[in-house]
């Protein structure tokens, strides 16, 4: 029994709170990125923060689907749809407003996900994994083949800088502000969405057949989640295209989906903070290991093995476990109080 109970996080009794502790902490950390350009002009730090935010936002697409035990490799596909939507709008229609582009980058992949979800969300396990990977391959092929719209193998280059209320966001720090805005939007949407449906998602994750027999239309929740995950991935695609000022198929390589999944698993798939922690750890590690030249992939792999062996619940799971141990060890910690008073107050027979 206790073994079963320790598998995942434990949502406590129903709370009316809009967001939980992990969600608030994550939004505060993502919000802190707005302050980075004020604190430093170091291009290395600005670039690194940019990369972490893009990686973490992309990993949200994986996180949302994992809440229902579905491992999605489709994140690069939806990033590409979001990124190319922005590139086409800015290059061909002259739209540069960051808010308009952000809405388009979210809505277009989310809409594309509706019919795709209808096709593939009946699948589970390895079949779902395979089909989402193939979907990413197909989108990649379309990017190369639909040259009149996507620029083919040359991509779409020479994008104008985005604007906010008429102000051009051009230099490194302004690009970071754009990325931070998109990441904040992505994290807020994900936090509100997963928090709102947390019981439904947990029930579907643990036993979707049982959840269905309790009256949950699992397919609808999965379709909704797939669509929101696609939209959030599209925001990451916008941020990536905006940073590179180019939309190119290689930016959305199917194998990059492995990285986004790794960020989520290593960070801890039980909480939204895990995607941010995983992305921060692994993007920083990639940068550090790059100094070791050929040893870099080996060191990166070693780090992933160590983290997954030591921290089965990811970095956040490990931290939560350590915090729990410290609380229990502390003599000042209050004992767990059964809500007897509440029972008595309600006049319930005991």
């Amino acid at each position, binding site marked *: 029994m206790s073994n079963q109970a320790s598998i995942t996080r*434990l*949502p406590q009794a129903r709370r009316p709170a809009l967001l939980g502790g992990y969600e608030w902490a994550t939004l505060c950390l993502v919000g802190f990125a707005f302050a980075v350009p004020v604190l430093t002009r170091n291009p290395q730090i600005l670039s690194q923060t940019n990369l972490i935010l893009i990686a973490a936002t992309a990993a949200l697409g994986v996180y949302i689907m994992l809440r229902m035990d579905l491992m999605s490799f489709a994140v690069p596909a939806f990033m590409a749809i979001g990124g190319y939507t922005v590139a086409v709008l800015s290059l061909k229609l002259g739209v540069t407003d960051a808010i308009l582009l952000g809405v388009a980058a979210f809505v277009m992949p989310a809409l594309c996900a509706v019919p795709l979800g209808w096709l593939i969300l009946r699948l589970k396990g390895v079949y779902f994994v395979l089909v989402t990977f193939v979907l990413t391959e197909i989108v990649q092929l379309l990017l190369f083949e639909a040259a009149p719209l996507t620029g083919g193998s040359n991509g779409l280059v020479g994008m104008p800088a985005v604007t906010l209320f008429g102000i051009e966001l051009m230099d490194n720090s302004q690009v970071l502000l754009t990325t931070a805005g998109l990441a904040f939007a992505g994290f807020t949407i994900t936090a509100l969405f997963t928090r709102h449906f947390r019981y439904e998602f*947990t029930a579907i994750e643990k036993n979707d*057949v*049982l959840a269905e027999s*309790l009256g*949950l239309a699992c397919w609808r929740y999965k379709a909704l989640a797939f669509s929101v995950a696609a939209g959030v991935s599209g925001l990451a695609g916008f941020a990536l295209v905006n940073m590179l000022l180019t939309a190119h198929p290689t930016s959305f390589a199917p194998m990059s989906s492995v990285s986004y999944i790794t960020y989520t698993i290593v960070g801890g798939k039980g909480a939204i903070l895990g995607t941010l922690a995983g992305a921060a750890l692994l993007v920083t590690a990639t940068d550090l290991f790059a100094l070791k030249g050929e040893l870099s992939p080996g060191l990166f792999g070693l780090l992933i093995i160590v983290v997954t062996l030591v921290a089965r619940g990811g970095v956040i799971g490990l931290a939560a476990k350590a915090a729990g141990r410290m609380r229990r060890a502390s003599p000042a910690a209050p004992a767990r109080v059964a809500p*007897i008073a509440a*029972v008595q107050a*309600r006049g319930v027979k005991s």
Partner: protein
Amino acid sequence: MLSIRDLHVSYGGTRAVEGIDLDVGAGETVLLIGANGAGKSSLINAVIGLVRTARGRVTFDGRDIAGLPSDARARCGIGYSPEGRRVFPSMSVKDNVLSGAVRLTPREQARRWDGLVDTFPFLAERQAQAAGELSGGQQQLVAIARAMSGGPKLLLLDEPFLGLAPVWIRQISAAVQRMRDEGIAVLMTEQMARPALRIAQVGHVMRSGQIRRSGRTEEIKGAALAEEYL
């Protein structure tokens, strides 16, 4: 309330249920008894829609529900407590119970919770505890409370006494009798026939996917065919 006619369920080439006719009226507790593999759980699963019926009609409140998915059947007013309890182990007791009432408003959920706490007082004491940490009997009560939380008109209980101590069997029996008093129809399967026959009004003895004997529970108790299960 629930009417089953000529129901057939097959798994590949194996026939699990063959030509079952059965009725459950409002406020009535109907018991299916039989050995392992008799087809009791298959019949329950066919009613909630977890297995596809090969043939036959299932009507609930006058509506043919045979073609509906299980979530739609649950929304029609059918509660289901599966064999082996199957609570969501990492969710709290309260979340487990209310996962059967997600379509209700928060106010209605709160009202339902209070009503269930009246029936099962231990829910209030353990509401924040992970359901996976409870004993088998407590988990069974959580599963039954979860099935009741949506306010069902018909409750399907699949082997509710399985592996439980007498103290829990008494509690569950009392809860079933209370449901009957409230007008909720109950269709339950059980291998432990003696305690189950005490709370049901009508019994059906199943063997090899067929109903071999039906009648009031007093008749079933004395029937020679039933003896092999008692």
